[in-house]
């Protein structure tokens, strides 16, 4: 071999690695092009768009009620919240008064859905880290929630349950009791998860101090939800800008401090307990009554621009409606929290080992349906 090739150093050569779109840990069809030197990531570039369906554009040709099934498919693990976010925006724009029972059912379903989504986070995150049993336990509980939703609105994932002015169905007989029983059971399960995972040294070593960022960075990237609260910044729209009937319940906003994977993990777990608290209180307070307000058959939003954001599972989920007074939005812009949260990846992935990549990506917890919309 001659002395020609200047780049031929004995140092580890850099290698371009495609993680995804067909990769078990990218939570869907997400792709990261990472440049690695040995096991260390030098540069990471997220590539998105594999699941793009043009929801926003489609919505311009759809009536508001027709938009609702499309929102199911944004963050497909917490469709209730997506439904609600849209109908809430429309209701606010129209200034509708929603019946109490409808609001209670909405809160119960939303928080249950949040729970289901966090259960998925819990299961898949541990699967990313190599433990498979928590995944099955978590999915079993999620299955119970989904079965209840199935009974309530006829679908397991894509609920299409909320309507402008209320909800599609009233609860089936005995459904609320089922929820109550589930809440009680779930509290025991939380203890089990804590024993199985939260105390495990290997798990702790994997997540402590990994993928940390500061509040400034998080705010600078427009992050929200748990990904923002893990840095210690108290920002929960349910408290800060109360919508629906969240001000009627007594619950706390769990906060992190270090902004690392551990904080994000534990916030998910604590938020599940808070959701259980809310559901419990809602079950006590709910009264019989109508579930739909009086709304015109053809919904028309007055001309103007409206924005309403709610605390989605992954952060601030907002619908921005530009209306020219017709029954279809002139423009519908969706603020998708997963998309915003993902933006920090290239920064926090720099310099971490490959093994931490999945730990970090998993803790950010993006849902590709939402990112790509």
């Amino acid at each position: 071999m001659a002395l020609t090739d200047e780049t031929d150093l004995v140092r580890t050569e850099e290698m371009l690695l495609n993680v995804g779109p067909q990769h078990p840990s990218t939570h869907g069809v997400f792709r990261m092009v990472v440049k690695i030197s040995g096991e260390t990531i030098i540069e990471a570039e997220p590539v998105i768009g594999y699941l793009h369906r043009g929801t926003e554009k489609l919505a311009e040709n759809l009536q508001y009620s027709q938009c609702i099934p499309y929102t199911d498919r944004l963050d497909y693990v917490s469709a209730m919240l997506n439904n609600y976010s849209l109908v809430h925006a429309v209701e606010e724009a129209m200034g509708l008064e929603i019946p109490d029972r409808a609001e209670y059912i909405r809160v119960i379903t939303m928080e249950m859905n949040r729970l289901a989504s966090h259960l998925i986070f819990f299961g898949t995150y541990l699967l990313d880290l190599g433990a498979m049993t928590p995944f099955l336990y978590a999915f079993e509980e999620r299955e119970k929630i989904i079965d209840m939703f199935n009974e309530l609105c006829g679908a397991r994932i894509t609920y299409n349950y909320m309507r402008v002015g209320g909800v599609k169905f009233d609860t089936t007989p005995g459904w609320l009791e089922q929820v109550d029983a589930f809440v009680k059971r779930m509290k025991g399960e939380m203890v089990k998860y804590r024993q199985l995972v939260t105390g495990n040294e290997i798990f702790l070593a994997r997540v402590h101090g990994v993928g940390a960022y500061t509040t400034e960075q998080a705010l600078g990237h427009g992050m929200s939800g748990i990904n923002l609260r893990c840095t210690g910044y108290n920002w929960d729209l349910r408290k800060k800008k109360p919508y629906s009937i969240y001000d009627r319940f007594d619950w706390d906003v769990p906060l992190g401090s270090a902004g690392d994977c551990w904080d994000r993990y534990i916030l998910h777990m604590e938020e599940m307990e808070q959701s259980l608290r809310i559901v419990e209180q809602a079950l006590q307070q709910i009264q019989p009554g109508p579930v739909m307000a009086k709304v015109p058959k053809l919904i028309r939003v007055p001309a103007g621009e409206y924005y309403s954001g709610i605390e989605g599972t992954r952060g601030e989920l907002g619908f921005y409606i530009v209306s020219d007074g017709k029954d279809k939005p002139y423009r519908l812009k969706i603020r998708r929290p997963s998309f915003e949260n993902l933006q920090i990846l290239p920064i926090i992935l720099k310099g971490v080992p490959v093994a931490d990549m999945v730990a970090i990506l998993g803790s950010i917890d993006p849902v590709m349906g939402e990112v790509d919309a």
Partner: protein
Amino acid sequence: MNFVWNGPMIAFYVLALSVLGAGILMLSVRKVVYMALSIGGVFIGAAGIYILLGAEFVAVAQILIYVGAITILMMFAIMLTNHKAEEEPFRWTVRNATAAVGSVLLALVLLAVIRSTTWPVQSANLNLNGGNSNPVAIGLVMFKQYAFPFELVSLVLIVGLVGAVILAQERKEEE
């Protein structure tokens, strides 16, 4: 020398042929990785010879150190340097020719010497290990007779370790 065909003898010839074959294979393949692999054959074959000679501990040491450790180290070294390196085809330069002639000559001389010497014969039932198993006997010899060299071994190892670490570590200023 009268040849008696028997099991150990056959085993010896099979092993010897494989040792030499692996050695020659090493010199004849061109890819460095293959060379490093074929020398593994030499090491294992030599271990077989040791076993035939009753030196089972040395044989296992040979496998443990040579095949298990040194060859892997070489693999790593190959993969860290020019792992696609291939030898050029052999050319009859003056130097190579001299080396070849010299090696053959040396082999002939050595064989002649071996052939012309009368070697002692030993019983097959010779109890070399003094009633102990081979590793125990080796331990006794090593720690009684060769205690000082044994301590030096640790010195050699630590010097090797330190030297190699200093040499092999990537230095920051190069980055």
